[in-house]
């Protein structure tokens, strides 16, 4: 964003009419003020087209009776919302979504921080290890689904074979609700832990080494350094990672849909998530876009609520209680950075 100003106008040309100089000056003023917006405009124009428009249009559809094929059947008020909120399956889907979300996000983040810390240490063949953790992310979700579906098969699966050989009872991965959530969360964690670890690793490397060295000189243990310096200084990145996993976790669709061949979330909808419920209403049994749009909007509001809640929580957890960035001040605090 170089800003040519009127003061540094090229000296070479002979004296020009004052009027022209003023014109040039105001033009470049305009340039300085508007150019950034023009540069960023394409994104927002595209966003308005593929993001904002569908969002608003979905709200419009959600207050109409709207069939997949039959289209607009007239204004329905909040009837679609009332229908959805009265369905036990909706609340079941909500519960499943949060259960899978917690089972995947929490262990995933803890593991990702741990892996990032290990990768941050002085390892041989650093790049190899760092790329290695990203490999699962490259595998297509559908392929992950197929593989895990085989592994978690109730009668003939690998996981149950291991369990029974250890003398443990086999688990009904596709029968029990909680077991299916664990299996699906495993799929999600397999795919996303490495990705988050790399983001956190990048943030860790941005922490000034001298701060850590100072802590070590002051006699802090490695664990203390990690919790009192590394974690608090990761805060902005942690907020980003937690909010993106909140958004992704609540919208989870691929993995549970691939968890069996039918893709409806089990015979008792043991692992049907909210997006799967939306899909079933819109394209599956009912072909009702009105109700599906109502679910979409409810989910949208829930996600916003939880993203804000997580933002607030994360700010509290990861900060040391003050807005300071000075590591020495952090070190002096007695309770600094305790989780």
């Amino acid at each position, binding site marked *: 964003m170089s800003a040519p100003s009127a003061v540094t106008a090229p000296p070479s040309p002979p004296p020009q009419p004052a009027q022209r100089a003023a014109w040039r000056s105001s033009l470049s003023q305009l340039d300085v003020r508007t150019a950034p917006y023009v540069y960023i405009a394409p994104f927002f124009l595209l966003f308005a087209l593929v993001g904002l428009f569908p969002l608003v249009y979905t709200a419009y559809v959600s207050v109409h009776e709207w069939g997949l094929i039959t289209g607009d059947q007239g204004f329905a008020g909040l009837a679609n919302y009332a229908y959805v909120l009265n369905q036990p399956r909706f609340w079941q889907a909500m519960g499943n979504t949060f259960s899978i979300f917690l089972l995947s996000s929490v262990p995933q983040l803890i593991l990702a921080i741990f892996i990032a810390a290990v990768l941050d240490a002085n390892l041989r063949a650093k790049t190899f290890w760092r790329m290695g953790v990203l490999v699962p992310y490259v595998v297509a979700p559908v392929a992950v689904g197929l593989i895990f579906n085989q592994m978690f098969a109730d009668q003939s699966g690998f996981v149950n074979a291991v369990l029974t050989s250890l003398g443990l009872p086999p688990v009904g991965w596709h029968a029990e609700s909680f077991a299916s959530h664990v299996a699906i969360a495993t799929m999600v964690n397999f795919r996303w832990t490495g990705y988050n670890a790399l983001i956190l690793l990048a943030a860790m490397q941005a922490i000034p080494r001298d701060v850590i060295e100072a802590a070590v000189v002051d006699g802090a243990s490695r664990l203390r350094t990690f919790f009192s310096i590394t974690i608090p200084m990761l805060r902005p990145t942690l907020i980003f990672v937690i909010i993106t996993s909140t958004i992704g976790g609540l919208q989870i669709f691929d993995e549970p849909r691939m968890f069996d061949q039918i893709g409806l979330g089990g015979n008792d909808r043991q692992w049907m998530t909210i997006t799967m419920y939306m899909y079933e209403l819109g394209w*599956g049994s009912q072909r009702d876009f009105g109700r599906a749009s109502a679910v979409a909007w409810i*989910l949208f509001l829930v996600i916003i609520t939880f993203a804000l809640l997580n933002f607030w929580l994360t700010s509290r957890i990861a900060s040391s209680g003050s807005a300071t960035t000075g590591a020495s001040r952090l070190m002096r605090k007695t309770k600094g950075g305790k989780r």
Partner: protein
Amino acid sequence: MRSHTLLRGTAAAAVAAFLLVGCSPASAPSPSASGSAAPSEPTEPITLTVSVFNEMGYEGLVGEYTKLHPNVTVKLDRAATSDEAREKYMSGIAAGSGMADVAAVEVDWLPEIMESADALTDLTDPEVEGRWLDWKVAQATTADGKLVGYGTDIGPEGVCYRADLFEKAGLPTDRDEVAKALGSTWDDYFALGKQFSAKSDGVGWYDSADAIFQGMVNQVANPFSSTMPEETLIPLDQNTEIKAIYDKIMQSSADGLSAHLQQWQPDWQNAFQNNGFATMLCPGWMLGVIEGNAKGVEGWDIAPTFPGGGGNWGGSFMTVPSQGKNIDAAKELAKWLTAPEQQIAAFKAKGTFPSQVEALTSQDLLSVTNAFFNDAPTGQILADRAKAVTVVPFKGPNYFAYRAAISNAINRVDVDKTDTPEESWATAVSDVSALG
């Protein structure tokens, strides 16, 4: 979905309806033929797209059509699954554009598209009268007599069985004797099953209770709803006919006849390799599935019988959406593709069994045998099974959802073992009532 942005995900419904349509291949723009030409034979080169799914066996036929009609180039647009094809189809109808000139429809979702028969070309034509089995035509005919689809294949059912397991249990092994032992009713079928499981340690008589339900429900004329023109659902708690079937199947499962599997799941596929079960209801297209899953297993055979009379499972149609630019040429193509000769060629290529009357008596078809099934004359057997079909259930727009609710109920008891039959039935009753 995880990496998608917030807004894209929430607005999926709207996006899919309006943007995906833009992605599906539209038929190539063709020069508008000036009115003088014969309606069915284009005078200028045109391209027709045919949307198909799974394996319909038309790959080899496309070039042949161009040889007969030099001005027509045919392009196949294949979807991997019937579900995917259904989604594209629905979006195309909703948007009024973007559909193939000739589009395949599976019988399971045919009722849904019959609701919007206005968007489809009436294919009634004296030339094709009597070409198909009557019940096949009836499935694609609206209440006011409009024919929306030309029949392609059907799924006449026999009983596939493991001769080696039968022998171990002291049952007959020859396919005609097995047919005799299986009797004629479902009770006979279950009775022989009890005899079998008494002498076979833990081997299931049938693979899946839900598959048995599929077989039984396909013999009920009005399983879930009253007939056209308006579909009126029978509330599940008042549906005594379905309850009786449900109870009978649950009883057989409790008697130990079931292998407690769910079709298409990995456990089911793996069970083919480790003697999981001895019999299976098999429509023609299932033969290929069994052969694929049971690779290396010897002993499979097919008995020329079906409990409770004939039964049909599945089958498809070719429709001509009226949004196309070359409707007449498209209709001509659909007519040609669904003629007996072409359908026999498709049967030989991919095993889709023809629905055309003439094909059922063609020597070409009757002489087909299947080496994997102990050289059974599958052409002859399936043709006989097709003729035995007398009842085809009425399927309204809610058939699929209603059926799924009961499927789930059966699987909760038979496969998941999380519910008792009564609990599971109660859940199904509430699921069905939510469809309104």
